[in-house]
């Protein structure tokens, strides 16, 4: 049942291989519901046959019971009663079968959708960051909403309907043949005409539906843009122009919607009336045949045939209606499987992160949580194991990077960060500062050069373990639906409540959290929409703090928060950075000044490096930026 707000998106780009897709989808459905599906098919067959049995009864009713009644003076109703009881039994079986397959289909449909959602999501979580950077989020979302929804309609309605109609057509066709071959031929001719007409009409309407969809997109886009800018519209008194522009677009949509729906509406009456005409023709020919008693054709036979005639056009109608839904669902299935076929993030790392303790001056692995960590390096050739303490030393050696191979955005980056050092990146927008944050944690892989973490090439470290050892606070803070506590615990799943409070205190977040209506148990929704920008940043800092990583990547926010909050955030960040190797994309003077080394980036290259004082001395680009004589936008 379609709910409000869930409209199919109409004809989209044609799918290349609908047959293949359909089979793949069927395989997917069958994977978990083989037994269900077989039962459904059996039950549908039973239900259809019982139904046909009932129609056949019409013939017998008239020929074998009623006509003899007319001839006898004292009719015996007992055989009729028996016949009716027999048919009633068939009907009852049919009803049970109908109920059975409908009920099973609910599980098949909803279960398949559930599996699809789960599989889609768990696959999506394994995709590389690049996928999310190169695909519009709205498009990814629409796979989960629109595309899955069209599949629901197809699996729950179109598929059983199709099966039902197919079986009905075959069994009715066979029955018609048995009753009268000439009438069957007549019926088939009429069906041919019907299919031809409805194809014509559907083709017309399809073309207009595509146009309507396009116009609808334009209108929706306009609406969205204007609603977003409504306040600007008011300030500039631009209302009149807007109304005129909108009217133009809206009228175009009206024309295409009108035509599309008109042709779609023609389908019903055309099919129905051609069906009726077919009925009339069969009645006339059948009447003539029955009168002439040609080939033993009887009045009862005509009655049955006419019923079949009617029940023949109905499933054909249904199939033609379902075809539309199926085409649409295939477009959806195409997008769903495309997402499922996206390559997962590769991980060839074998160096893992383990808890470590020192025994006899040597580092060894241990089960319990010590506050020390070690890289467990199992050598590939001889299987020997080395333990290297995690200290947080990061070295870039001649690193080149580009989001694609054609366009390199970072060139020959060299840097050496000793444990506990703070490295700041400065430079104008687009110089490649943020890109660097994507490399150490291997969101993206570098094209050339090496990055070493405690002397180990990061390509050898298991991604999960590498990321565990890195903390990251991004410019746009993202929070999750859940309590404040849940959001901080995101950094360390087994954190105790005390640890959470401690982390919040370190990040200067504790005091504002306590002032929230439910403190640490306050629910956050919509990416923390009920918090201010500064508060969200504080939570993100707390989340990084609780993970307690040896290396930290910070992308300072540029957005304007008021000075006081800013100072609190700043202080939280400073506390977090203490004692950790930190890479910071800096926007604030104090951060830059306190750094052990400042890297000035320009067009993907490090053009200057050194401490604040050294760089000021140099009077180069940094000096320009610092004294504000450069245009950074």
């Amino acid at each position, binding site marked *: 049942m379609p709910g409000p707000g869930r409209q199919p998106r109409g004809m989209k780009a044609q799918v290349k291989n609908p047959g293949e897709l359909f089979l793949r989808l069927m395989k997917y459905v069958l994977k978990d519901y083989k037994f269900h599906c077989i039962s459904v098919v059996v039950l549908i067959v039973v239900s259809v046959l019982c139904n046909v049995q009932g129609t056949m009864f019409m013939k017998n009713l008239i020929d074998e019971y009623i006509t003899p009644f007319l001839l006898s003076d004292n009719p015996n109703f007992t055989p009729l009663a028996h016949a009716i009881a027999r048919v009633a039994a068939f009907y009852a079986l*049919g009803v049970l079968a109908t109920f059975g397959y409908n009920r099973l289909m609910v599980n098949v449909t909803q279960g398949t959708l559930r599996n699809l959602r789960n599989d889609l999501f768990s696959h999506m979580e394994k995709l590389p960051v690049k996928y999310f950077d190169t695909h519009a989020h709205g498009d990814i979302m629409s796979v*989960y909403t629109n595309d899955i929804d069209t599949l629901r309609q197809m699996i729950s309605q179109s598929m059983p309907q199709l099966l039902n109609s197919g079986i009905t057509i075959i069994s009715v066709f066979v029955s018609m043949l048995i009753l009268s071959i000439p009438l069957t031929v007549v019926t088939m001719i009429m069906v041919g005409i019907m299919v031809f007409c409805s194809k014509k009409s559907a083709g017309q309407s399809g073309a207009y539906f595509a146009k309507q969809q396009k116009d609808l997109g334009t209108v929706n886009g306009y609406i969205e843009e204007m609603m977003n800018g409504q306040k600007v519209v*008011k300030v500039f008194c631009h209302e009149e122009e807007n109304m005129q522009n909108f009217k133009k677009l809206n009228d175009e949509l009206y024309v295409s919607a*009108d035509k599309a729906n008109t042709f779609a509406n023609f389908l019903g009456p055309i099919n129905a009336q051609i069906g009726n005409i077919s009925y009339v023709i069969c009645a006339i020919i059948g009447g003539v045949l029955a009168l002439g008693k040609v080939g033993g054709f009887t009045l009862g036979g005509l009655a049955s045939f006419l019923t079949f005639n009617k029940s023949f056009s109905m499933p054909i109608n249904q199939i033609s209606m379902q075809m539309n839904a199926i085409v649409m669902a295939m477009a959806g299935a195409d997008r769903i499987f495309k997402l499922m076929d996206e390559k997962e993030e590769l991980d060839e790392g074998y160096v893992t992160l383990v808890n470590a303790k020192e025994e006899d001056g040597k580092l060894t692995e241990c089960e319990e949580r010590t506050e020390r960590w070690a890289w467990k390096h199992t050598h590939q050739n001889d299987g020997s194991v080395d333990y290297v303490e995690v200290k947080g030393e990061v070295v870039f050696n001649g690193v080149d990077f580009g989001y694609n191979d054609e366009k390199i955005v970072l060139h020959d980056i060299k840097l050496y960060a000793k444990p506990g050092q703070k490295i700041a990146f400065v430079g104008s927008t687009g110089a490649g500062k943020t890109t660097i944050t994507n490399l150490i944690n291997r969101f993206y892989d570098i094209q050339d050069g090496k990055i070493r973490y405690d002397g180990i090439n990061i390509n050898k470290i298991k991604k999960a373990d590498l990321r565990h050892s890195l903390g990251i606070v991004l410019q746009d803070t*993202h929070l999750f639906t859940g309590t404040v506590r849940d959001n901080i615990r995101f950094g360390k799943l087994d954190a105790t409540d005390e640890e959470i409070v401690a982390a919040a205190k370190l990040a200067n977040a504790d005091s504002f959290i306590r002032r929230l209506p439910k403190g640490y148990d306050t629910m956050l929704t919509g990416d923390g929409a009920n918090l201010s920008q500064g508060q969200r940043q504080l939570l993100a800092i707390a989340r990084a703090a609780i993970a307690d990583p040896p290396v930290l990547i910070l992308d300072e926010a540029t957005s304007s928060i*008021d000075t006081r909050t800013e100072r609190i955030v700043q202080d939280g960040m400073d506390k977090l950075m203490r004692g950790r190797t930190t890479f910071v994309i800096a926007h*604030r003077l104090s951060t830059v000044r306190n750094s052990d080394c400042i890297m000035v980036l320009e067009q993907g290259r490090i053009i200057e490096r050194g401490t604040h004082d050294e760089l000021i001395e140099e009077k180069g680009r940094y000096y320009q930026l*610092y004294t504000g004589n450069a245009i950074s936008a």
Partner: protein
Amino acid sequence: MIKTLAKQIKEFKAASIATPLFMILEVLMEMIIPYLMASIIDKGVNTGDIHHIYKVGGIMVVAAVIGLFAGMMGGRFGAKASAGFARNLREAMFNNIQTFSFSNIDKFSTAGLVTRMTTDVTNIQNAYQMILRMFTRAPASMICAMVMAFTINARLACIYLVAVIILGILLFLIMSHATKYFQQAFPKYDDLNESVQENVSAIRVVKAYVREEQETSKLRRASENIYNIFVKAETNLVFNAPMMQTVVYTCILLVSWFGAKMIASDSLTTGELMSLLTYCMNILMSLMMLSMVFVMVAMSMASARRISGVLNETSDLKNPEHPTMKVEDGSIEFRHVDFAYKKDSDEPVLEDIDLKIRSGETIGIIGGTGSAKTSLVNLISRLYDVTKGEVLVGGRNVKDYDMEVLRDQVSVVLQNNVLFSGTILDNLRWGDKEATLEECRHACELACADEFIDRFPKGYETYIEQGGSNVSGGQKQRLCIARALLKKPKVLILDDSTSAVDTATDAKIRRAFREEIPDTTKLIIAQRISSVQDADRIIVMEDGKVNGFGTHEELLEQNDIYREVYESQTSGGGDFDEKEGE
């Protein structure tokens, strides 16, 4: 609510009336056919009258053709009426939204308005077409079939009457039960989507903390919940088809049994029996159809409510009866102004603001988040009305001006400013439709936008994507300032409009203002002290009140807040690209 919507049918009334009429005609034709059929069998076949068969068969074909025509016309007009109705609804909403004041806009979220104009209208369009076509067709078909059945044989037709009542009750029970479940189910659905959305946009955080598995198991739980609730909801609907079949089959068997007996006693003919059986299907199918229409209409009611909410919303700002059409100068005065976003709110956003600003002055406004800086300036161009006191521009109450005149003379660069899809020139001309390229260039020079526009390959013809996504934040802000300047306003308000512009350019823009438009009153809201310290006077806002008002030097001496902010920004807490001092 229905009335509000129905008003928008307008020129499509004729089509709206024609549709059901044609549908009824189609139904009548459809009903005649089984009746004629009975006549063919009884009078033609049974008596051997071949002419009767031809004659009645001919009539039947004519009936079918008329039915075809009527059905197509019904479809034609139904499509026209519903598409037209949707068009009018969209237009009426859009036009009404254009009259909204800021507080009206605040009431509906942007996303909410978009949904109302798109999805909700589509729902109504579909429901309206359903109503026009099926709501007449189904009952008409049911009534006609019932009447025909009764004329053929009243006693047997009574079986149908009973069946209809029973089926109707059962359908009602099932549907209302199912609807209840579905209403519970849809919010769950939204929850799931939200969680997916969250993961898509925050994938870096998820991956950085290696939380893929945790998030996946969270989603699995959510999707299991959906599975359970939807299975429950749909299990209700599963009863529909078998129940329908049971009733139909029971009717067929009963009619066959009693019909056979009647035929034996000569009170019914074979042909009549066959017609009766055909009508049986007609009646019960119509009922089924009707129940589906009911559900659809019920579900679209929520959309109807949302739409009429927009249509019935009236702007709370009204133009005065005899508006003043000229703003004398750029002087501004606040006389004991109180302001709250909600009329009956206890906590005013602004309290007892009393200010006098001379024409041509440059005024800086500074204060923490939530100190109501934006609320203060929004009152000047009457984007909101004051709750108490009055605001004067050019010596007259803002409520006396024609709103368009006032807003042309008081130009605001909003905090969340928006560029629209179109060329740079198109965007600039929002400020002045007739502006020449020269004027646009000049405005851009003042706003320091010319330097980057000239670097674009297409210059002023560069196409701006929706929301200005292809220009940087600083570029966007400068374009917005240029756009506001083109109005040649008497008062120019910049609401934190240079936050993404570097300090040097910021200073350059302010210098240009001072030199090029000395007579325009300039109000500049900023976070950076450097953006306001060279203003003639500076307002320090704190908790909706004016905490200080004076020159930079005066405030530095007398105002604690100002001094604190100043010190924090000059002693290393400010932006990196901030100049130290001036």
